[in-house]
C-alpha cells in the first residue's frame, strides 16, 4: 500500500489476535514488541506496518478521525524553524539523524458534545466622577445583570491515552474539524496507533472542565459597559450530551540528552509544536562567556581609541 503522507510503500498486513507483548511479523517472521494498547505498529526487522484488527473493530472502532495532513519532512522543517534560535540546545538536537526518529502516531481521543443552558447573574457598577468648585463627586450606580444562553458545544476533544501527557494534548489543540472523516483503516497504515485505554467516563471530567471554562468566559464576555462586575451566580445545565471515539494525528520526536528524554509533539494536521529544547550547560557558558569577552573588549578598546585619535 502506498502512503500519500510519508511517501512510503508498505504492506498492510493484518495480524489477528495479537494481544501479547510480542507478536510475529507476518511479513518476515520476526518478533514485534507490542504494547498493551497498540493498534498499529512497525516491524523492527522488515519495517512493515502491522494493524491489529481487534483493536480497531467493535467497541474499539473509531467513529471519526483526521488523517495526517503534514508529512515527516514538513514537520522536521517546522521543528528546525521553531528551535533555530535555541542556541543553547545541543548541536545534534536538530540533526537529520535525530529528527528522522520522529514517529507519526494516531492518538485516541474522546469527543464530547454538550447541549447546554447557561445562566449568569451578577452585580455591575458604573462610576461617574465630576468636580464642582473645590468638591469632587463620585457617583456609583448599581445594576442587576442577568444573561441566559444556549451554548451548543461540539466535539470537545480529550485524549484517551495514558501515555500522552494531558497538558501537552491540550496544547495540541485546536484541530480543524472541517477535515474530520469517518474512520478508514488504510489511513493508519504507515503510522503507529493506539486504541483508547481510558473510557469516555474516565476522562469526561476534563471535557467538562473545558466546557465550564469556555461557557463561563462567554457568559462574562456578554457583560460589558461596567466599571466592575461581581459574579453572584453562574449555572451551566447540560440538556444533552454525547461522546464519540476518534483518532487524531500527532508526530512525536523524542530527543535524549544526558539520560533525560525531551519529547516534542507536532500536530499532524496544523503543524503546531509543543515542547522545550534541552539546554547544554557547556554552550550556555561558551556563548555567554564569548558575549561578555566581546562586549568588554569593545567597551575597553573604544574609549582608548577615541583618546588616541
Amino acid at each position: 500500500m502506498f502512503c500519500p503522507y510519508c511517501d512510503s510503500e508498505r504492506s498492510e498486513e493484518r495480524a489477528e489476535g495479537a494481544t501479547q507483548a510480542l507478536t510475529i511479523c507476518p511479513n518476515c517472521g520476526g518478533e514485534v514488541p507490542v504494547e498493551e494498547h497498540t493498534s498499529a505498529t512497525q516491524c523492527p526487522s522488515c519495517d512493515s506496518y502491522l494493524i491489529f484488527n481487534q483493536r480497531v473493530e467493535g467497541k474499539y472502532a473509531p467513529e471519526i478521525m483526521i488523517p495526517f495532513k503534514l508529512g515527516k519532512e514538513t514537520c522536521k522543517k517546522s521543528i528546525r524553524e521553531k528551535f533555530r534560535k535555541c542556541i543553547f540546545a545541543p548541536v545534534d538536537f536538530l540533526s537529520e539523524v535525530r529528527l528522522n526518529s520522529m514517529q507519526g502516531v494516531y492518538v485516541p481521543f474522546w469527543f464530547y458534545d454538550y447541549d447546554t443552558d447557561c445562566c449568569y447573574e451578577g452585580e455591575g457598577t458604573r462610576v461617574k466622577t465630576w468636580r464642582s468648585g473645590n468638591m469632587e463627586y463620585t457617583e456609583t450606580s448599581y445594576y442587576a445583570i442577568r444573561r441566559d444562553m444556549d451554548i451548543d458545544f461540539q466535539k470537545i476533544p480529550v485524549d484517551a491515552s495514558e501515555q500522552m501527557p494531558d497538558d501537552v494534548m491540550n496544547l495540541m489543540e485546536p484541530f480543524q474539524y472541517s477535515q474530520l472523516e469517518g474512520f478508514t483503516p488504510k489511513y493508519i497504515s504507515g503510522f503507529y496507533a493506539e486504541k483508547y485505554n481510558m473510557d469516555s467516563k474516565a476522562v469526561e471530567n476534563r471535557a467538562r472542565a473545558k466546557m465550564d471554562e469556555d461557557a463561563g468566559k462567554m457568559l462574562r464576555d456578554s457583560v460589558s459597559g461596567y466599571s466592575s462586575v461581581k459574579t453572584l451566580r453562574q449555572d451551566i445545565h447540560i440538556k444533552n450530551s454525547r461522546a464519540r471515539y476518534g483518532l487524531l494525528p500527532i508526530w512525536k520526536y523524542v530527543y535524549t540528552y544526558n539520560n533525560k528524554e525531551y519529547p516534542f509533539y507536532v500536530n499532524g494536521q496544523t503543524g503546531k509544536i509543543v515542547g522545550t529544547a534541552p539546554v547544554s550547560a557547556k554552550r550556555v557558558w561558551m556563548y555567554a562567556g564569548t558575549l561578555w569577552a566581546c562586549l568588554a573588549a569593545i567597551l575597553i578598546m573604544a574609549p582608548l581609541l577615541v583618546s588616541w585619535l
Partner: protein
Amino acid sequence: MSDELKRESRKQYIKYFRIWFIAVGLLAIALLAAGIMRSMKGSIPRTNSEAPAERVYDYGDMLTDEEEEKLRSYISQKEGELGIDLVLVTMKQAVEGADAKEQYGYRSTGWTQNMQDIADDFWDENRYGYNKGFEGDGALLLDNRYPGQRGEHLSTSGRVEYSFSARDVERVLNAVDRYYDSDPYKAYKAYIDTVCDLMGGFRLPSWYWLAALAASAIAAVIFGVSHLHQEKARDTTAVNAYVSGGKPVLRSKEDQFIRKSTVTRRIETSSGGGGGGRSGGGGHHYSSSGASHGGGSHRH
C-alpha cells in the same frame, strides 16, 4: 561527540558571533594603528620663545626639590601634547586689606581681585602662552598660603580661556581643593590633570574599567537568561472553538438599575514652592597689561 558534530558546533558558534568577532577585530586593528601613529607623532611645535623655560615657582616653599622636578617634567610632557603652557606659582603673601594694598601696591583691598591681578600679571609679564607671548594659550595656578588668606586662583588665557566655562574652572579648583590641605604636590598635579582632561587630553576615570567589565557581565547574564527562557507552547484554542456556529445563542439579557450612591470629597489645594538659586557664571576680564583672561578663585 563526533568530529562532525564538533565541526558543526564550531561552525554554529562562529556564525553566531561573526559580527562581534569582526567588530572586535576591526577595533583592535584601529587601536593598533592609532597606537603606532601616536608613538610616531611628535609634540605640537612651540611658537612662543619669549617666555622663560621655568614653569614651577615655589615661592611659598610648598614642595620638595624632588617634587618640583617631577612636576616640571610632567608639565613639559603635557604641554607638548596639548600645546598649552601650564604654570604653577605658590607664595605666602598678604593680599587683603589696606595694609597689603599699601605695602604691595595692589589696586584693591579685596582678596579675590588681588589674587586675580597677581596671577594675570605674572602670566603677562613673563609673556607665557604656548603659541604667543600675549594672550597665548595656557593656564596658571596661583596658590597663596599666607595665614588667614589661604586660597588658590586659576588664571586662563587664549585657547584655555575660551574653552573653559565657569563650571570647568570650578572643576579644576575643586580638584585642587581635594588635596589642598593634605598633599600640595597631589593638589598641583590634579590642577595639571584636570586642565589637560578638559582641554582634550582624554582620560577615563579609574572606575571605568571595572564598570565596563561589570556591565559586560550583566549583559551576558541577561543574554543567557533570555535565551534560556522557553515556552512549551501557547494555548491557541479560542473560547468558542467548540461552539456550534461559533457563538452562543443569547436568549435573554437584563441590566436592571438597582440603586445609586454618591461620595463627595473636598479637594485639598497646596501653595506652590519657590524657584531655586542660580550659580554665577564665568566670564572674561582684562589684566593691567590689557590682556584678556578668564578663571576663578577658591578661598580656604
